[in-house]
Each structure stands twice: as structure tokens, then as C-alpha cells.
């Protein structure tokens, strides 16, 4: 593990757009004065005629994206998760979701790993909000390899897609050569029989590290990566829960309405199972270095391992 490469998934997003721009000539990118931060600036540099800055006006940007999609383009509307899912929620719902238009929303700076900017910019609610929109696909990639694959999968999917990316550089654990992204399909990264740890986004790698630690302590944990939160892979989740009988969900998002809630929705109907949720509790974030904040909020391998061990008993 000495030479682990780290990269922020927002960086992967910008690079993927620039890489895919040649292949998909219908791809256009919109941003709201954050191209340097969302990394769509990488696309802008390569395709200046297919990039449109909308200024600090996210509501209008989402509507413009809707109009472009209604006339045959594939627009990626990019801004921070707080403004994409938060400020522009009703436009996403009524102008993109209701007419089921082919708009891709690239939401970066999700979760508390935004760090020093603090609570106003740490969006822990976006998955919950987007889940309520009928027909919305939600993807929360775990690393660089998955993020890039997800961008192309979003292009190939006809319909609205919300994609969630992070600001913090995180380990690249997927193998680019063998990785395969299937929309709506979870990935069992590690098989186990004692407990199912179901994670998404930046927490997938933490769950893998926790599972190694648990193994050394005699606990055999299964680790599942749910990159597509909607539609969720209910079969995989129910089968794993039936096998282990205990489920621990982990996400860098509010425990209200996110992955944990989605997993509970599945299990309540298909396989009632004891579930514990690790995420941001019913509270706002605050300022601090991202890595430190993740520790403080328990979004780290140590807390995952400790909680799993308590559940296994």
C-alpha cells in the first residue's frame, strides 16, 4: 500500500469530460462560475466552443440544460452539490425530472470533505433530495477509475443522471484494466459471512480498510460498493443481508435519506435485517481539514471496524 495513488473524483470528472468530448460530439458542458473547482475547466480548455459559463445562477443553468436536452444535446450541468441539488432542487425536479430530459448533473464538493469552507458548502442532503425525484438516476463513484467509467455510463443512459463527486483526493483502489461499471449494479469487493458493510463514494475504500482490520481480529466482513444509489441493486443487498444477517451502511451523507435509508427501504420489504448506519448524523458540518473532519464525524475505517465489531458482538 506504499504507492497508493490519490486523486479527487472531481478531477476524474473534468478529465473524463475532456476525454469523452471527442467521442461524443453532442456533449456540452455548463458551469456556474466554478469551472476551476469542478474541473470542467479541463473540458473548457479542449472544447471552448462546447463550454458555457452560466455565471453564479444555478437555477437558470439547470433550465438551460433542460432546453438543450429537449433539442437533442447532452448537457452536463456542473456546480457544487449544495447548489445543484439544494438551490436548484425545484428546477431539477420540474424542468429536468418531470419531462425526463437527458441532462447530466455533475455535482462536486459533496459531503463534509469539502473541509475548511464549512457547513454552508458541505452538502450532506443531496442524495436524499435527488432520490425523491421519479426517474432520476444517482451515481456516487468511489474513486478515479469508477468516476471516469460512471461519466461514460451516464452519457450512454438516456434520462436525467445526478453524479456526485468529491473535493478530497482519495486512494485509487479499482484496477483500470479490469474494472467494469454497470449502472444499477453493486459490486461485492470482498466476500464474508459475519456482516455486510455496504458503502458508497469515498467511504468504500474506508470500508475495505476496515474489513482488513476486522479480518485480523477474526471478523469476516463482506464489503459491497453501491455506486448507483438509484436505481439501487436490491437483489445484491437482500442476498448479502440474508447471508450475514447484519448490515452496516457507510456514507459521507446524512443518515437521513441517503444510502442507509435506501438500504433500509430494500431490507424492510425483502429481508428484514438489523441495520446500523454510519454517516453524518442529524447535524451540520463545520470547518476543518477534510481528513480530520472525516475522523471527527466517524467516517473512517477505525469507526467502521469498531461499529462492525460491536454488531457482530
Amino acid at each position, binding site marked *: 500500500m506504499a504507492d497508493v495513488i490519490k486523486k479527487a473524483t472531481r478531477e476524474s470528472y473534468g478529465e473524463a469530460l475532456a476525454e469523452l468530448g471527442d467521442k461524443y460530439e453532442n456533449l*456540452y458542458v455548463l458551469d456556474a462560475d466554478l469551472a476551476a473547482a469542478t474541473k470542467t475547466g479541463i473540458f473548457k480548455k479542449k472544447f471552448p*466552443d*462546447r463550454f*458555457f459559463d*452560466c*455565471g453564479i*445562477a444555478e*437555477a*437558470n443553468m*439547470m*433550465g*438551460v*440544460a*433542460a*432546453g*438543450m*436536452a*429537449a*433539442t*437533442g*444535446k447532452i*448537457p452536463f450541468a456542473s456546480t457544487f452539490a449544495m447548489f445543484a441539488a439544494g438551490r436548484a432542487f*425545484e*428546477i431539477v425536479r*420540474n*424542468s429536468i425530472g*418531470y*419531462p425526463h*430530459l437527458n441532462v447530466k448533473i455533475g455535482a462536486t464538493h459533496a459531503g463534509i470533505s469539502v473541509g475548511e469552507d464549512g457547513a454552508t458548502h458541505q452538502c450532506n442532503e443531496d442524495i436524499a433530495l435527488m432520490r425523491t425525484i421519479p426517474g432520476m438516476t444517482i451515481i456516487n463513484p468511489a474513486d478515479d477509475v469508477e468516476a471516469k467509467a460512471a461519466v461514460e455510463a451516464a452519457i450512454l443512459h438516456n434520462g436525467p443522471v445526478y453524479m456526485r463527486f468529491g473535493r478530497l483526493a482519495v486512494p485509487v483502489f479499482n484496477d483500470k484494466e479490469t474494472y467494469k461499471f454497470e449502472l444499477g449494479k453493486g459490486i461485492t469487493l470482498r466476500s464474508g459471512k459475519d456482516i455486510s458493510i455496504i458503502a458508497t463514494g469515498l467511504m468504500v475504500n474506508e470500508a475495505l480498510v476496515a474489513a482488513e482490520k476486522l479480518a485480523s481480529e477474526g471478523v469476516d466482513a463482506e464489503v459491497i460498493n453501491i455506486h448507483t444509489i438509484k436505481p439501487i441493486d436490491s437483489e445484491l443487498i437482500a442476498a448479502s443481508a440474508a447471508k450475514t444477517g447484519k448490515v452496516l451502511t457507510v456514507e459521507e451523507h446524512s443518515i437521513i435519506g441517503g444510502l442507509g435509508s435506501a438500504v433500509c427501504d430494500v431490507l424492510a420489504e425483502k429481508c428484514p435485517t438489523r441495520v446500523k448506519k454510519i454517516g453524518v448524523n442529524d447535524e451540520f458540518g463545520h470547518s476543518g481539514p477534510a481528513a480530520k473532519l472525516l475522523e471527527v464525524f466517524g467516517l473512517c475505517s477505525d469507526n467502521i471496524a469498531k461499529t462492525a465489531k460491536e454488531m457482530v458482538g
Partner: protein
Amino acid sequence: MDAMLKKRLEITACKVRLGIIEGVHSAKSGHPGGSLSIADTLTYLYFAKMNVYPDKPDEPSRDRFVLSKGHTAPALYSTLAQKGFFPEEELKSLRHVGAMLQGHPCITIPGVDMSSGSLGQGISAACGMALSAKVSSEPYKVYTILGDGEIQEGQVWEAAMFAAHYKLDNLVAVVDNNGLQIDGRVADVMSPYPITDKFAAFGWHVIEADAHDFDSLEAAFNEAETISGQPVVIVQKSIKGKGVSFMEDNVSWHGSAPNDEQYAQARSELEAALAALQA
């Protein structure tokens, strides 16, 4: 305007108004006032200006229309029915369970280019369509109609800034200045005035028109086509409820349907007007 064309448009507009009353009465709800105020403008657009194809509603080269003031869907539906996008019979099931015609415009209805009705959003979608035409050098134009109350929404001014910044001269927005919104006179609720100066300050070419005079509408929309390098707004002075005497300039007809007696009276007034035009 050619006298024959003008007569035809006046006749069609009268039929559009009859369809509005039919739909709203059948639904026992809806927005007749603001529908009647844009009936002439929609008639002009669909019967004298826009390239649209009822037999090929999704033809990519067609001009686009977004009803940003989406609550006046009865006017759009009635116009589309007159144009032949779907049978006039559909108007009788407006807002009914399982019906095609939803309370606000829905993109799945033949001839409807964008779902709309949450105020302030339609103009942004129209901007996106106009930008889309520009980037792929397509010649179609994009038209949208906003309410004068609707422009109280902040998103309208985000869109106004955007359209001017990207020089969307293939976009024509109409502000239907009937002077009334749900809570009363727009000037009393939250004044949007001066509307013309505001759009001019945002970089738009501004034209004023009489919403119930086809010569004035023709002059306005023709002038709009001569403008390059900036978007065009037509601020049209209109009468809410136009064509039905007891609904005219009366705020209580913003969002309520006529009862059977009022329906009969509205119908007889419009039928008399139609008969006079056809005489």
C-alpha cells in the same frame, strides 16, 4: 396585414377562446383570465409565424414554443387543437383523471415543446433551446410567453442576463402585461414596472405591442426578426379575460372556472363574435 389573413386570424382566435372556456368549464378549475389575454398572440404565432407541423410534431427543424406562464395551458391546448395537433374533443377532458391534457403543459402532449408552469422556469429552457440552435447552426427560432407577475421570479432575470450574454437573437420572449396576478394588480402586489426599461438594461431589444391587434402583433414579431446580436422581448399590453365581458380586467377570473350559467353566457358572447366575423 393582409385583410383576409387578419379575418382568418380573428376567427381562429375566437375559436381558441371558445376552446379555453370549454376546457376550463369542463375541468371546473383552471385559469381563464390569463389564457384569454394571450389567445390572440398564440393564434398569431401558430397560424402566421411559427414553422410547426401537426402531422410531425417532433420535426427537429420546427420552431419551438415554451409557455413560461404555464398556468394558461388552456390557451396553448386550444390553439394546438385548432392547429390540428390533437382533436378539439380533448379539451373536454382537461384536468380529468387519466386525461392527456394536464393542468400545466407537459412535454408528452403533441405540440408541447417543454413542461412548464412553475413560474420563471420556462424562459430558462427557452434560452437552452436557443443556445442549442446557435451551437449547431440550426435556423429554428424559439418563442416564449411570460406573465407580468411571473417576472417577479428571480430566475427570469438570471435568464435575461444569460440570453443577452450569449446574444440569443433567435429567442423572442413575450411579456403578457395584463396587469393582474392572483393577489391583485401587479403594481400593488410587487411592481415589476418599468418592464421595458428593465429588459433594456439587461441588454434586450424591447418592442411594445397591443396584444389584441393583429397588425400590432405582426409588426412586433416582424421587427423581432430583424434584430441581430441580442434577444428580443415584446411587452404586450393585454386585457385579462379578453373576449368575455364579465371576465375582462377582473382578478377574480385569474384562477376560477365559470359555473354553468356563466359558461353559457361566455359561450354566447364568443359565438356571437364568431358569427359576426363569419358574416
